[in-house]
Structures are given as C-alpha cells and as structure tokens.
C-alpha cells in the first residue's frame, strides 16, 4: 500500500475519529466543573486520617499504591527490555575514549552542581508527603543529577558511578522492596500494602507512616532504572566513538 493511498484513507478516517472524539469531549462537564466524588472525598479525608499534606503523593503511594507498584514494574520491565534489546556480544570497554571535559570552570562548577542536585533530589523524595514531590519525581531528579557526572567530567567517571553491578541490585531492591513491604502487611493479617505505622505529625518528615518506605523504594528503583537506561543509550553512542579514537 503506497503512502499516497495510506494518507488518502487516513485523512477521512481521522476526520471522523476527530469528530467523534470532539462529540464526546463536548459532553464532558465544563472545564472547572469537576463533580465526581473521588477527588472531593480524598481532599477531605487524607489530612485528618493520614496527616499527609500532599494529597497527590498520598494517593500515589497509599490509597492507590497498588497501581504504583504496577507502574514501577512497568519501568522495571522496560529497562530490562532495553538492556535485552541493546545487548551487543562482546562489547569492548571504551577505556581509550578521551572525552574528559577540558574547561576547569565546567568541571568545578559541575561537580558542585552534582552535589547540590543530588541533595535537592533526596529532599524531593523524602518530603514527598509534605510538599510537592515524591518517589517518582525525586528518583527521576536523582538520576538526572548523576547524569551530570557524565556531562561535566568524562565517560570513565560516569561508568564508575553508573555501573551495572551497582545499579542492578538497587533496581531489584527498589522494586522488590515495594512488594516486600506490601507482603509484610499481608503476613501481618492486613490487606496488601496497608499503611501500618502511625500517621505521624502533619507537615513533618514523619508523616506518611509506612507509605514513606514504599516512597523510598520507588525513588530508589526509578533512579536506578533511569540510570541503567542512560547507560545503555550512552554506550550506544560512546562505543563507536571509542573505536574511532582507537583507530585514528
């Protein structure tokens, strides 16, 4: 089927699709007129029951924590899949790649920045139940902070930090930790992933109960998974460069 025929069939179909979608969208409650009970109920009960001021994180890790577990494993499976797909038999160590950043200003400023970013990421994870943040956001930020190492120094420094031997256990412990915490509640006779520690005090690091642990395990898993992804794609880029360097 040639492109022309494909587009000729697509355009009217897409037009009809768009029309039907618009017809459905027009039937939605007006923008700003959210009526459903789910959001209102949660907005009212989360603070008194669980002493968490960030309702979104409470929903993600407590009320709908099981969804989050599935989502975490989606990330886990995708990263395993990428490693599977980007495997190349006998990949050489790109040791001879000479790509250290030259400018001192970038190296020094960058190294300081890495430290600051890591701290901010850890803060994002830990205070997720109080202010905007949480395991996923903080984990992604943590992975990006570590990626800075690659950008401000060299591939060698990066592979020292983001090596398989370090990251895979982190990923496994993060993903598995989530499940184990849930199972812990199950073994204790409560439903899976019940928040077992007390609610703690509002607005402090100790709000959140045991959901704080799943928060951390999610953060760990997300950071490790993202770093594995970065490593895989960076190596795809770097290995040909190293071969070029070695040759010429």
């Amino acid at each position, binding site marked *: *089927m040639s*492109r022309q025929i*494909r587009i000729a*069939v*697509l355009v009217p*179909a*897409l037009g*009809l*699709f768009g029309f*039907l*979608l618009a*017809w*459905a*969208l*027009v*039937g*939605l409650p007006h923008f700003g007129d*959210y009526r*459903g009970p*789910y*959001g209102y*109920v949660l907005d009212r*009960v989360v603070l008194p029951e669980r002493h968490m001021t960030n309702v979104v994180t409470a929903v993600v890790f407590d*009320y*709908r*924590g*099981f*969804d989050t*577990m*599935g*989502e975490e*494993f*989606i990330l*886990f*499976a*995708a990263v*395993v*899949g*990428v*490693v*599977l*797909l980007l*495997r190349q038999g006998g990949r050489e160590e790109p040791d001879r790649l000479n790509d250290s950043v030259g400018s001192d200003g970038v190296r020094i400023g960058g190294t300081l920045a890495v430290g600051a970013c890591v701290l901010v990421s850890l803060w994002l994870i830990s205070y997720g139940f109080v202010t905007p943040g949480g395991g996923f956001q903080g984990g992604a930020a943590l992975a990006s902070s570590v990626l800075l190492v690659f950008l401000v120094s060299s591939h060698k420094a990066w592979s020292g930090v983001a090596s*398989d031997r370090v990251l*895979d*256990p982190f*990923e*496994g412990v993060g*993903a*598995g*930790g989530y*499940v184990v915490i849930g*199972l812990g509640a*199950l073994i204790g*006779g409560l*439903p*899976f*992933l*019940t*928040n077992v520690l007390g609610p703690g005090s509002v607005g402090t690091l100790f709000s959140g109960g045991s959901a704080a642990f799943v928060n951390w395990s999610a953060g760990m898993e997300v950071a490790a998974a993202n770093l594995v992804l970065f490593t895989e794609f960076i190596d795809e880029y770097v290995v040909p460069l190293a071969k070029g360097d070695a040759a010429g």
Partner: protein
Amino acid sequence: MSWVLPLPVVLPLLGAALNAALDHVTPRWLHVAVTLAAVAAALAFAILILIYSMSTETLHWFGGWHPRSGVAIGVVFAVDPLGAGFAVLACALTLLALLYSIPYVEVETRNYDMLVSVLCGACCGFALSGDLFNMFVWLELAGVAGYALTGFDIRRMSALQGAVNFAVVNTVGGYFVLIGIGLLYARTGALNLAQIGRTLAGEKSSGLVIIAMTLIVCGFLCKAAIVPFHFWLGDAYAVAPAPVCLIFAGIVTDIGVFGVGRVWFTVFDAPFGTHQRFVGDALLWMGIVTALVGGTMALVQQHLKRLLAFTVVCHIGIMLVGLGLLSSKGVAGAAMMLLGHGIATGGLFLAAGLLAVREPARWTAALWFCGAISLIGPPYIGVYMGHALIDDAAVELGRHWVQPLVWLAGALAGAALLRAGAQVFLGLVDDYDHGIEEDRDGPVPYLGAISALLVAVGLVVSLIPGLTQRVMRGADRFRDRAGYADRVLHGIPMKEGAHLPVVLQPTSTASLAYGCGALAVAVALAAFAVRRPDAARARVFDPVVWPLRQLQTGVVGDYVMWVVVGTAVLGGVWALTLR
C-alpha cells in the same frame, strides 16, 4: 481468605525483582530456581483462589481502603471464577514456558526470565482486578514485557519488525483505553468498575459514554488482534521465541477479549442494556470477519509460526463471537474456547519450536496432528465444547447463520495446520521452507514431552466432566452486574448456588454434525492444498486471498491507519445506533 488474592500477581513480580537484586553474584541455576519457585507458588495460590471463588466472591481492598458509603477510594481485586480460571491458566502456561526455556533459551537468560515472570504477573493482575485504571496498568505491563520479548532475536530483521509493529499498535490501543478512562472518570468520578457501572446505570446514555465505550473496546481489541486491528499479530508471533509464543497465544491475546467482556458486563451493560443487541452484533460481526480472515490467511502461509499466528487470529475471532452473543452460554463458549485453543496452540508453538533444534521427526508429526485436530474441534475433542456452546447461544438468539460461518473459519485454520503438518512433518514436499532456522540446542525428549503434555491436555478439554457446567455458572456470575456491584461496594455476600453435577455436558445434534463436517472439510481442503500443483491452487485461492495478502504490508504506518479506521467506523456505527 482474601489475603491470597494479591499473591498470583505479586509473587512473579517479586521473583523478577529478586533476580535483578541477585544479579552478577549468583549462578544461572539460582535465577532459574527463583523464577520457577515464584511462578509455581503463584500457580498454587491461583488454584486455591479458583476453588474458593466457586462458592464465594472474594474481595481484596488494597491498603485496607474499603469503600465509604458506596464510594470506592482504593483499588480492589474482585475475583469471580472466570477471572480466577484465567489466572490459573496464565500461571500454568508460564510455568511450562519457563521449563521449556531452560534448555531452549541460552542467552540473556536472566533478563528473559525476569520479563516472562513479569508478563505472568501482569496477566493475572488484569484478570483479577476490579478497578479500571488498575486493569490499564496491567495491560501496559503485559505489553511492555511482550514487546521486549518479541524482539529477543535482535540480529533478525523480522524479529525487530514484529516487535516494532507490536509495540506501536498496542501502545496506540493503550492510549485509546486511557482516553476512554479519562472520559468515564470525568462523567462518574470513579475508577472502580462497579461504581462506574452503578453511576452510569442511573443516567441516560450520551455521546460521551458511547465514545468512551468505543475507545476502551477498540483499545482492548488492538490487544486481542481483531480485524482491523489484527495485522501486527502475524508479524509478532512469527518471530518471538517459541515458549514466549506459548504465553502470547495462550493468554496475552485473550486479555483483550476478557477486558471487553469485563467492562461490558460491569460498566456499559447499564446504560446500553436496552440497545445491547447493537453492541453485541457489532462484536459478533467483527469476530466472524476476524475468524474468516485468520483462517484464510493461515491457509496460505508457509512460515510455520506465522501460520500458527493467523490461526490464533481465527480463534480469537471465534471467542469474540461467543462474547458478542452476550448470553451466558456465549460467554461460557468463549471461555471454553479460550481454554482449549490456548493450550492446544501453545503446544503447537512448542512443537514448532522443536524444529529449531532438529529436523522434524515422525513423533512430532503425531504431536502436530493431534494439536491440529483439537483445534478443529470434532465431537468432544479439543475446542468442540466452546464451539457447541457458542452454537447453542447463537441458535437461542435466532442467529442461525453464525454456526456454519464459525465452523467454516475453524475448518480453514484446521486445514492450514493439517496442510503444514503434512508438508513439514511428513515430508510430503521437498525443500519446504518453514522459516525456522536450526540454531538452538536442547534435549529433544524433554522439550517434546512438554509440548506433548500441552497437546494432550488440549485434546481432552471438552471431555472433562463437570468443567462445562462450572464454566457456565462462572459465565452467569461474570454477567451479573447488579450482583457484582452489591458485593464490591456494599459487601453483600453472594447466594450459594445449587451443587453442580460432574457429568459430561450434552450438546445438540447440529453441533455434532458441524464438528464432523468441519473435520471433513479441513482434511479435504488440506489434501487439495498439499497435492495439487501451485497453479491450480492459486486459481482457487488467489481471488480471495490476494487482497488480504496485499493488505498485510508489514508497514507499521498502515497498521495504525487501520486502527484509526476501525475505531472511527465502530464509533460511527455505535453513535448512530446507540443514541
């Protein structure tokens, strides 16, 4: 007893995570042992849940968040017999696939095992869940694991093509489901299936609900490879490793049909109950067309696994026909079809996988023919009971033309299998290129035994006394929206049903006749296709087949175009008929 419910989902996932945590420090046998232990434990608990679900409805509210005056604030697993049976099948097939993979898959075994366990957990989660967004999460998880496993042979362009087509089409389908979920959430403010259904029951249907249903159904049907969303399956299942194809054909494709059934009978049954024939008939027709297209395309394939892939398309179409009849017998027929087809096709995929180890032998021919016959479904063999129940349901609804078409489609697929069996395993054609390279190693008796086990179980599915009655009772409960909502939202326990007999289900004479007829047609067609020279064959088949083959271009852009066309047309039809 509700503590058992999360386990078939959680244990395989935990096994995968443990494998990741133990990486680089442990030998292969430990990884394999952890994975097998996790899946075997999941199977044991799934069987427990199945037995328990026959007499009571079990619920598990995650995090202990029970509903507050009819508003569900947490995620629930609400298990009925069909869902539990699906989970048992998923775990059992995964276990056999893992056992087959131990010698069969020699590279990247740790990553492979992790993805297969995750796939198993996702399928169980989908079947057990009572929350719409939770179902979406498991759908995506099964998808992601599937895409990576399809592309396992990264050196082969065909494997990459299959993986890309699989990934893009199913991801688009997933987005449609998500838009549908968003629309329903805006309308009802709930994500729990029972609650959405209850909220919609009290109101008139509207364009929003019609299109939400279209999007969610089309999204699930992309996974189920129903025409016109089916093109990717021929590409993907032809190239995935054989044990992975077992899981795909046995369980993953069926997720789509199960999902459509689940959302219809808990959510959309309420607003469209009076117009349900329009919905059912649309599904019915899509199913029949899919079955015929699948059977026809299978007949002309040379590549063995691609042939099997198209027979999967054919049988999934028949399952959708059963579902589209919307009656208990129809749903029960779809369920029996799922069971019989999944096990038998799985066995055939494993038998085809044997060809990668060595030349076809006589006993593999016997294996292949037994599997083919159970997929044709002569009286009381293989998928016969599924066919018979669907026949009864169609006749009860006055749709007498469904019977011959469904049997014809099954006969076409069966003829394809018989033909391929004769050509490959009996060596009736020299230099037949079955598309499977001999590049693997393994103890053939062991691999053959696993394949034989599946084929043997597939043969006797219709003969198991008492199974059909229990499946029919399960279908009754699957369809009972009001009862489901009562149990999930208000905890009202279900009434104990009468004790079910353990006997063979009788079937109508028409079904017996059709069963024998299908076998005869399949054998005759296969004989014609094997012996006659190419030109004669082409004259007969080409007018029908040539346009279908032209449409199967292999280009992902075309496939997504058909997804849009199919969704738009179905949406248009339902918009006109359901208002």
